[in-house]
C-alpha cells in the first residue's frame, strides 16, 4: 500500500505510518537488503500481523520501529512515525525515553529477554520507575496489578520469583507485564508464542487480545503461523524477501488470498490435508538477499511466473477494502480451481 488505505477510517490519523522503509545490513563481504521498500499504516487499537518465513524481513521491520539494530552496521532509510515521534530523527536519548514507554516490545524468548539475576517484580518496577519517576512503593503496587492483568496465578508470590523459577507460559506473561507497564500506545510482539505449547499459546493469545482491547493499543505482531494470525489479527501483511507482497483485512488475506505466495503458504501449512497424499509444498527456497533477482522475488518458485515477472517487480494493486497485492498474475480474479493449482 502506498498511502493510507483507501476508504477506511481516513478521518483518524494512523498511529503508525511507515513509508518506503529500507534496511541494509552492511558487512565487509556484502550488503544485505533485509527490508526493501516497506510501507504500511497501523490505526490506533488495531492489530497488524506480519506473516513470513525466516529471512523475510518481518522481525527486522519490527526492530526498526524501535531502532534496535546495531548502528554502525545498519543503514535505515525511509520514514517512520509512531504517534508524534518521527523515529528516525530522534536523538539516542529521546529514543531511550520512547522505548518501553510509548513503544514496547515482547520478544520470542522470555528467558533471554528477562534479566536472570532480578526478580520479576524488580524488573517490572524498574521500568515503571525509570519512565514515570515514581516511588518504589507505587511501582511495586503497579507490578502486582500488572501481573494480575496478565492472569498470572498467585501474583504476590510470583513477584518475588526469578525468571528461571517460572514456566515458559508464565515467563512470557511476565514479559508482557514488563512491556505493558507504562501503558504503551504501540506494542511490538516478535513471535511471542512460538516457543510455547499449544495449550499455553492460546491462553497467552487470549490475554494479549483482551489487554489490547482494554488499553486500546496498536499492536504489530510478527508470526510465521497462519493460525496465530487468524486468532489475533485485524490486518495481515505477508512479507517475502523484504517486501510486503499482500496486505488486507484478516478475512481478505486468509479467506481470499490472491498472491501465489500466500496461497502456497496456506497449501504448505498442514491443516486437514488428506493422508497419504503429498502436501502441495512451495518448491525451492527463499532467494539470497545479497543478490535478489531483478524481477519479482517469488518468480523463481512461482508456477505462474513468466518473462514479465522476471523483468520487473510488480507495483501494488489495491482492490476494494484495501486488499493489496504485488503480483502481475493476481490482478484478475483467480478462480478457486486455478488457485488450488498454484501453490
Amino acid at each position, binding site marked *: 500500500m502506498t498511502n493510507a488505505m483507501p476508504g477506511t477510517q481516513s478521518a483518524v490519523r494512523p498511529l503508525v505510518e511507515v513509508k518506503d522503509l529500507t534496511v541494509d545490513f552492511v558487512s565487509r563481504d556484502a550488503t544485505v537488503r533485509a527490508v526493501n521498500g516497506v510501507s504500511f499504516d497501523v490505526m490506533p487499537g488495531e492489530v497488524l500481523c506480519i506473516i513470513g518465513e525466516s529471512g523475510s524481513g518481518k522481525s527486522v521491520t519490527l526492530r526498526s520501529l524501535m531502532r534496535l539494530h546495531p548502528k554502525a552496521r545498519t543503514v535505515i532509510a525511509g520514514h517512520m512515525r509512531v504517534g508524534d515521534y518521527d523515529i528516525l530523527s530522534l536523538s539516542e536519548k529521546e529514543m531511550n525515553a520512547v522505548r518501553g514507554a510509548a513503544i514496547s516490545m515482547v520478544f520470542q524468548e522470555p528467558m533471554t529477554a528477562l534479566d536472570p539475576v532480578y526478580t520479576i517484580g524488580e524488573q517490572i518496577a524498574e521500568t515503571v520507575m525509570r519512565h514515570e519517576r515514581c516511588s518504589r512503593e507505587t511501582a511495586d503496587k503497579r507490578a502486582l496489578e500488572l501481573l494480575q492483568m496478565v492472569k498470572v496465578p498467585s501474583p504476590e508470590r510470583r513477584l518475588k520469583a526469578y525468571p528461571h523459577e517460572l514456566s515458559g507460559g*508464565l515467563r512470557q506473561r511476565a514479559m508482557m507485564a514488563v512491556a505493558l507497564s507504562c501503558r504503551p500506545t504501540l506494542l511490538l510482539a516478535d513471535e511471542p508464542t512460538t516457543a510455547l505449547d499449544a*495449550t499455553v499459546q492460546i491462553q497467552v493469545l*487470549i490475554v494479549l487480545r483482551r489487554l489490547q482491547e482494554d488499553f486500546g493499543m496498536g499492536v504489530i505482531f510478527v508470526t510465521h503461523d497462519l493460525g496465530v494470525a487468524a*486468532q489475533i489479527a485485524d490486518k495481515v501483511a505477508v512479507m517475502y524477501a523484504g517486501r510486503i507482497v499482500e496486505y488486507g483485512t484478516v478475512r481478505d488475506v486468509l479467506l481470499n488470498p490472491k498472491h501465489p505466495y500466500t496461497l502456497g503458504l496456506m497449501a504448505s501449512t498442514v491443516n486437514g490435508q488428506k493422508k497419504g497424499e503429498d502436501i502441495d509444498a*512451495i518448491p525451492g527456497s527463499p532467494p539470497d538477499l545479497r543478490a535478489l533477482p531483478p524481477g519479482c522475488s517469488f518468480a523463481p518458485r512461482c508456477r505462474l511466473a513468466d518473462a514479465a515477472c522476471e523483468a520487473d517487480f510488480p507495483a501494488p494493486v489495491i482492490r476494494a477494502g484495501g486488499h493489496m497485492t504485488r503480483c502481475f498474475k493476481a490482478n484478475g480474479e483467480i478462480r478457486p480451481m486455478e488457485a488450488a493449482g498454484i501453490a
Partner: protein
Amino acid sequence: MSLQPSERHLQAVKPGHPHDRGGKAQPMLIVENLKKYFPIHGGLLNRKVAEVKAVDDVSFSVLKGETLGIVGESGCGKSTLARLLMHLLPRDKGTLIFDGDPVDEPRGMSLRDLRRNLQMVFQDSYSSLNPRLPIEDSIAYGPSVHGMSRAKARAKARELLEKVGLRPDLFAGRYPHELSGGQKQRVNIARALALDPRMLILDEAVSALDKSVEAQVLNLLGYLKRHFNLTYMFISHDLHVVRYISDRVLVMYLGQVVEIGPVEDIYTQPKHPYTMALLASRLEIDPDQRIDTPPIVGDPPNPINPPSGCRFRTRCPLAEPICAERTPTLGTGAFAASDHRAACHVTNPVAGHSFAGRSLQSIAPSEMPARFAESA
C-alpha cells in the same frame, strides 16, 4: 537442487524387509513398563533429594510399517522416551523387544544391532551434524564404523543424498554451515538411513523448519517410508502434522501415556479430557473460528511432585475425589492395532466416577464442576 527424489529411485520394493525376523504380525517394537527417573541432588552432602519422573511406567507397541505419532506438551517425556528407546540414556526399568528380540539382554539383540535397525533424527539440524566434516563423510561415517569399506560407504552416501533430494555433485563436499535448515535436515535423514534401518524415530524433526520447507520434508518422509519399507515414530507438538502423518497416536502427559488409538478415532472422538483440551487448542486458519475461552488453564504441574492419582486432575474439568485416590490405567492385556484406550476413570464404567461410561462429547460444559466455569 532437485526437490523431490526422482521417481526412478522410488520404484516399489518387494513387500517385507530382508532383515525381517518376526514376520508380519510381530510388532516392530514392544515397550513394556519403561521407567526413567532423573535424580535431583542437593543439600549439604549432595545426596539425592528428589526425582523427576520423566517416563513413568510406559508401555506401548509400534507395529510394522506404521507411523506412530507421539504428542504432548513440553516436559511430558516425549523426548526422554525417544532417547531411552535409542539407548542414548540408560533406562531404570522396563523391557524393549525389537522385532521379537529383547534388546540388551542375554541371548537378545545387542545394542550394536539395535542401532543398525533403529535410527533417530533430531530437531536441531545444525547441532546434530559434525561442523568439521563434509556432509558426505557425516553420512558415510555410520556404515564405515559398521565395517563397510571407505569407498563403498561414500558411494552409499552419495546414493542417499540423491534420494533425499540433494544432488551429490553439488552438495557432497559441502559443510553443514553451507546448507539451509531444510537441506541440513535432509542430510540428517540421509545419515539416519545410511545403515539401512527398519525404524526411524523422528523427534520434532520438522518443527524448526519454515512451513514451505516443512511441507517438502514431510513429503520426503512419505516417499522414503514407502521406498525403504520403514516404520516411523513421529514425535511432535504440532497436532495438525501428527494427524496428517500418523496411523496411530499416543498422547503423553507428565511421563505417562494417557491415550492411545487410531488417529481418526483420537481426533474425532477423544476419550481423555486432556486429549480433548489439546485438540481444542489447535488454531484454525480461519478468523471466523477464533477461540475465546482457553480449553485448558495453567501449565503442566511439576513432574518432581506429580499430583496423586490421575496426574491430569489438577487441570481437568471433570475431576472428582476418586481421581485423587486412584490412578486410572490404560487397561491390561494385549493391544490390538485398532484398540483405542484412555487412562481416565470416565472411560471405565466401574471406576466410580459420576460420569463413568459416558463419552466426553456427550458431557455439556454446564454439567462440569463450577470451579472451571470461570476461565483464564
